[in-house]
């Protein structure tokens, strides 16, 4: 797992994906920070975090698009799958590499907190609550993106499908609002990432949502392993 993790970290930077991702994250979070936080004169960064949901949704598939699809296309998966490592460690090595980059990007909020600290007071409990909520959201989205990447050989297709899937998940709330059947509403809302995430930005730290994000991450990593395994049996 360590070898794959290190290689993917290196590949993020040599391929330039890391720069695109970090720049995109910095640009939009900076925008929302200056407009939503500094501009409105509050010291609470929650508005920025809630706006970042949609940005993360589009940025994460860029991060994950190549991870498994490129391997298949360039036949480098033959090197990995015939090496004495388990399928799970291949998937997790890649997963944690992407998650690490996400954490690096997200940690830019600590620079913002310094800016706030200069002219006001930082409420650390809400900031950390938001920070970890976004971390868990990213953990779930990266697993989904990685899974999509395992399904195709084309990285662009992987990115587009990934964005589409995440966007559909984002639309769950408005979809639920338009379907006046109670149990369908309930079902749709129960897989809504947005409503769960927004709760955190309002200062509600809900353990069940954390469990939801983490189990999504585990589930989709498991699916990715199954896809790799299934390909061997094809």
């Amino acid at each position, binding site marked *: 797992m360590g070898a*794959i993790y290190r290689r993917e970290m290196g*590949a993020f930077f040599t391929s330039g994906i890391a720069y695109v991702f970090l720049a995109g994250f910095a640009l939009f979070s900076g925008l929302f920070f200056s407009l939503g936080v500094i501009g409105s004169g509050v010291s609470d960064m929650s508005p920025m975090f809630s706006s970042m949901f949609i940005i993360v949704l589009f940025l994460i598939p860029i991060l994950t698009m190549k991870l498994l699809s490129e391997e298949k296309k360039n036949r480098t998966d*033959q*090197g990995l799958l*015939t*090496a*004495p*490592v388990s399928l799970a460690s291949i998937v997790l090595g890649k997963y944690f590499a992407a998650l690490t980059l996400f954490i690096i990007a997200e940690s830019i909020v600590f620079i913002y907190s310094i800016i706030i600290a200069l002219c006001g007071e930082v409420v650390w409990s809400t900031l950390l609550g938001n920070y970890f909520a976004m971390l868990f959201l990213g953990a779930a989205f990266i697993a989904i993106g990685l899974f999509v990447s395992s399904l195709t050989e084309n990285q662009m297709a992987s990115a587009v499908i990934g964005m589409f899937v995440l966007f559909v998940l984002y639309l769950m709330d408005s979809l639920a609002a338009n379907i006046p059947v109670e149990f369908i509403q309930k079902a749709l809302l129960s897989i809504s990432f947005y409503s769960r995430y927004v709760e955190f930005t309002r200062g509600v730290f809900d353990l069940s949502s954390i469990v939801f994000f983490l189990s999504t991450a585990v589930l989709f990593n498991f699916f990715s392993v199954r896809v790799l395994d299934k390909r061997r049996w094809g």
Partner: protein
Amino acid sequence: MIEVKNLSKRYGDKKAVNDISFSVGKGEILGFLGPNGAGKSTTMNMLTGYISSTSGQILINGVDILEDPIEAKSNIGYLPEIPPLYVDMTVDGYLNFMYDLKKCKLTRKAHLKEICDLCKISHVRERLIRNLSKGYKQRVGLAQALINNPPVLILDEPTVGLDPSQIIEIRSLIKKLGKNHTVILSSHILPEIQAVCDRIIIINKGVIAADGTAGEIADKLTNEHKMTVRIEGSTHTSADKKEITDALKAIDGIKYVRADMEREKGIYDYDIESDEEIDVRRAINTLCREKDWNILMLQLSDMTLEDIFMKITSGDITAVKSEDEKKSALAGYEIDFEKSGQKTEEAVSGGENSADGEASEKNEKKDKKSSSKKGGDK
């Protein structure tokens, strides 16, 4: 070292590999030979655990590849048909990655240096793999397979894309490696297999068509005496040709006569096939004495590996069941013969020639016998 038992791989209705069994001992270099699409790569991919088998068992060093894949894989170094290289890495970075991936315990610096020296890539270690030529990429692929010094090396067409001098280098390297490793190597280039391997398995349409040393295979399959005779007739015209052909055909034991090209003015060569049990050379000599013809040359033609390969892959020898399948086997093959394009054509057209239809039928019967014998041995 490697034991394969009744291995099959099915893709939908198509059987890519059909019930093959063989074993390879320690320090043996085994050549896997077959036309494109015969199932070589599929078999190798199964041996290395890249794909799984539909049925059957593979033991690497006594470990079942499906039961304990990690342990089994740690005994294998694999160079696939397309080397699994990350083109955005340097050679050094890549080899270090593979070193980590294989959880190698040998001293990193010394081990990698040794491998790079062996594969002659020491001077490109700092370069990006993207910028290397195909030959160098192939060598990096080979170097990667050698990391952690695995007892079994599986090389899928290791010399593809190399120039002649590199091919010779890689071959001698493989021979060298064969002293301490068990090597399985696939190729569709016959001289290569002949030059490097102790033992050859010819695989065609997913089944093993022949297994043994080049000599053994030749012995097994040479079931007719073939020779070329140059006979000088009395008139030195093409009328000779017909007369001599007819006279030769009348000799007891000769199954097939074909007048070949005019080698000298008015003198022709005759390709003759005779029954195994009967030596027809004396009869030919007697005939010529009676008719006052002169034998200018008599050459027995040994079967080369190429002849054998052509015979097997053109459907003459394999356990091809129906006539239809046989025809499709004849029609469908593209065989990449580097040197002997012409020879190939001749052999194929010879096989289709209606004159020896009988002969090939006989062969087929014999084969069925011999294959059933083989089955009994197992």
